[in-house]
């Protein structure tokens, strides 16, 4: 299993600003992901955070809006840039021990954009 610390747990931000979310894992993991969960909705994969290289983004998500860093095998950040009210969601960090293996989730960041 993996213990994931994600912060902040929640934030209220003004339109046009940016927020960086941090995800720290207690062990080295190869696979780290960022998900978005809009109010009352399911989870949507934003991107796979790759250590030492650019993140792999899913359709509908772009690096300029959601820049991701992964400097090592235990840490990643997701930035939500130039925020609008439509970005109000829960953002979840997730790790997996291998392809198609169980995902472990961080506690989430509840973001509200005014």
């Amino acid at each position, binding site marked *: 299993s993996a213990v994931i610390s994600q912060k902040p747990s929640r934030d209220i931000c003004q339109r046009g600003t940016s927020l960086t979310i941090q995800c720290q894992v207690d062990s080295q993991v190869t696979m780290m992901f960022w998900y978005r969960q809009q109010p009352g909705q399911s989870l949507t994969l934003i991107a796979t955070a790759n250590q030492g290289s650019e993140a792999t983004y899913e359709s509908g998500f772009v690096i300029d809006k959601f820049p991701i860093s992964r400097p090592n095998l235990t840490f990643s950040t997701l930035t939500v840039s130039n925020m609008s009210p439509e970005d109000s969601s829960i953002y979840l960090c997730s790790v997996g021990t291998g392809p*198609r293996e169980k995902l472990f989730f961080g506690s989430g960041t509840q973001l509200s954009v005014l």
Partner: protein
Amino acid sequence: ELKVEQNPLFLSMQEGKNYTIYCNYSTTSDRLYWYRQDPGKSLESLFVLLSNGAVKQEGRLMASLDTKARLSTLHITAAVHDLSATYFCAVAGYQFYFGTGTSLTVIP
């Protein structure tokens, strides 16, 4: 793209009753997960089902997988209030494809 549908989306049931949540998916997969999410919390893994006919049970919850029908079920036996949560199935393919979620409320 693999699509995953759950039904019902909302379920209100009385304590002591039984009910089943259904998870249908659109393409072949032999690995399916069930997760639980409490309000304002993250996701907690409940079960992983690895093959056709797999059945897993934990307490009042039992999950099964029929890969030929592309169907998984989560059966709740004699529901209690503590089971109130949102339940997601997730199919492991190229990525994890999450179902729409079932919001369960157990009424005393």
